[in-house]
């Protein structure tokens, strides 16, 4: 008998460690033999801690679970009556939230013991790597090309083209670097994959290594993710022991090994060239491009830099073929996207689906609207550099170009929901303050402009509506005069708020605020 209690950071933040302890005590007390497995999260964060009992191969869920629910669960197990427990949600796979998804990258997350190669393989893991070893570099790149996979880190650059450039570059040592800096608020898919199925990322990186001829890789994980760091380290260690990583991967002619590196609390280090500087032990200042990292990357050598989700999609693509992946989605947004629904939302979590769902269906249908029960005002899509999308644009399909057409950004596919109490002026101020705090300092529009913008928004908040033009000018200068998307895109959330909620910056809204102060 196996009982699953998630070890995912979100589950732990909601008390899953205490639940695991209580279950252990209770099992012993009632003399029931059962093994507690610490799995990842299924992504239904509102149900966490979500305990699962495997009864004759079917997994029954119970959540949100409190330590006090443990005695009744053990009794239910003894009676083999799962529905008897007050927290029962039924068979987990049959839950509406699970059934509506197409879990390709996240198929094993929440299902398996994350750091065990044996369990990984028992659930279909390593099939992609085996296929890649059989196919060889050129065929791998062809498959990824056919899949239409684009970078999930934000820029949406075709993954296969990047790989082709690195494969064709001269260099005795090349690198695969995984960008796991995931600094965007509203995003947690990278974290969830690294904690729930780290071997999937390892497998994806190993396949990339074969494709471009790189024998060494690094995962750059933000320091705010200690659980992910730990899971990745454990999984790498087991992968080495089992011969998945090393001089001869799975007994093949291909060598590949990798290491975890930890960031140090700088958002800008998610930008790929800043990340490379940081890995090299320098200040995380953005580098001018060209040269592109594919040719002159880590330590000046040819380097693939890809997001966790880009690399994590690759094992499935290699196992099932690029065409199968590319058959999903809309327009130029192919395959599936792990949507993260966050903020003031009733059913928050991770939902992997083919591109193309309408934003409103995601927010109101899947997410169930706000947690507060108040009307949705807007959602911010794509993190701190992404636009706020008002309800009037909720018919936009979830895709790169489709969101772009609304001056919005897919980014890392995180959606933050706000109810009607959200203060748009404050949110605009936050966007610019964040940019000022996190700027790498290389260009003036970003470094100084963001600080000026904060001051200008303060003036607007005090009722000076003439400052709005100044703010627009500043946004324009930042947009066109910044080297990277931190300074270049910080105006997007601000401009979107100004455009869609103008009266909060002028007119009655501003006056009301003034009166309140």
């Amino acid at each position: 008998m196996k009982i699953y209690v998630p070890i995912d950071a979100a589950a732990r933040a909601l008390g899953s460690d205490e639940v695991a302890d209580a279950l252990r005590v209770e099992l012993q007390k009632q003399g029931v033999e059962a093994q507690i497995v610490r799995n990842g999260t299924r992504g239904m964060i509102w149900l966490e801690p979500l305990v699962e009992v495997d009864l004759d191969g079917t997994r029954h869920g119970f959540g949100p679970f409190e330590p006090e629910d443990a005695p009744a669960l053990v009794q239910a197990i003894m009676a083999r009556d799962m529905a008897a427990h007050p927290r029962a949600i039924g068979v987990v796979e049959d839950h509406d939230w699970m059934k509506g998804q197409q879990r390709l990258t996240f198929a094993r997350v929440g299902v398996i013991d994350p750091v065990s190669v044996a369990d990984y393989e028992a659930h279909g893991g390593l099939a992609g790597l085996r296929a890649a070893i059989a196919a060889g570099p050129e065929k791998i790149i062809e498959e990824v090309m056919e899949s239409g996979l684009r970078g999930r880190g934000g820029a949406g650059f075709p993954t296969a083209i990047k790989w082709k450039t690195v494969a064709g570059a001269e260099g005795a040592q090349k690198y695969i670097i995984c960008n796991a800096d995931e600094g965007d608020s509203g995003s947690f898919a990278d974290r969830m994959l690294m904690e729930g199925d780290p071997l999937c990322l390892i497998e994806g990186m190993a396949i990339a290594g074969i494709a471009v001829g790189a024998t060494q890789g690094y995962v750059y994980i933000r320091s705010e993710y200690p659980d992910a760091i730990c899971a990745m380290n454990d999984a790498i260690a087991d992968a080495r022991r089992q011969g998945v990583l090393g001089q001869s991967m799975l007994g093949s002619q291909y060598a590949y090994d990798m290491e975890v590196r930890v960031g140090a609390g700088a958002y800008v280090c998610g930008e790929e060239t800043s990340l490379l500087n940081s890995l090299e032990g320098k200040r995380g200042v953005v580098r001018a491009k060209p040269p592109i990292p594919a040719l002159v990357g880590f330590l000046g050598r040819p380097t693939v830099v890809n997001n966790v989700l880009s690399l994590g999609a690759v094992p499935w693509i290699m196992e099932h073929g690029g065409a199968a992946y590319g058959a999903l989605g809309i327009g130029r947004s192919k395959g599936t996207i792990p949507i993260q629904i966050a903020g003031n939302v009733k059913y928050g979590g991770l939902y992997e689906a083919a591109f193309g769902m309408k934003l409103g269906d995601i927010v109101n249908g899947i997410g169930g609207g706000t947690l507060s029960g108040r009307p949705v005002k807007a959602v911010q899509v794509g993190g701190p550099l992404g636009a706020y999308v008002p309800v009037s644009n909720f018919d936009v399909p979830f895709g790169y170009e489709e969101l772009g057409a609304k001056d919005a950004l897919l980014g890392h596919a995180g959606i933050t929901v706000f109810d009607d109490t959200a203060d748009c002026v404050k949110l605009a101020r936050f966007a610019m303050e964040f940019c000022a705090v996190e700027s790498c300092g290389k260009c003036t529009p970003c470094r100084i402009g963001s600080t000026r913008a904060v001051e200008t928004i303060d003036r607007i908040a005090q009722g000076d509506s003439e400052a709005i033009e100044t703010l627009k000018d500043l946004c324009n200068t930042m947009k066109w005069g910044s080297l990277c998307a931190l300074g270049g895109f910080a105006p997007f959330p601000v401009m979107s708020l100004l455009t869609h909620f103008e009266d909060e910056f002028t007119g009655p809204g501003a006056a009301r605020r003034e009166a309140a102060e």
Partner: protein
Amino acid sequence: MTRTSPAAEFDSESIERLDQIIASHLHREGPLLPILHDIQAEWGMVPDDAQPIIAKALNLTRAEVYGVVSFYHDFRDHPTGTHVLRLCRAESCISMGADDLADQVCRALGIGWHETTPDGRLTLEPVFCLGLCACGPSAEFDGKLVGRANLAKVTRFVQEARA
């Protein structure tokens, strides 16, 4: 309101430990950040006295090492209080009332961001997203994550640690 550093005096034992840390990373490509992380884990800060020693070992100038230490929010040149409370200030948590929570916590503790209580027991730090955005507002107390944080939950942790 941070305390003056007790670790500022770098004795021979400290230097020996520092040399060990440096040596354990020297074989790496880009060893500086791993070294700084280990130093901070050991001393709770990156002591000024360590910087010239690191610089020499890595063939860098002291200014280069200082430049790196000062660039990253994580690295401190002063110690924190015995305990550290971090509150998330980013958008998803804002949507769940993080600003109000922060105000309440600041008032309850009588300190602001980056400050330490007068008894030296607790430092309050902001953090921009802990990846718990679907169960915000989020907090972290000495590494322990807290989802759906509120004043009662946060103060319970603080009091338990102080007891």
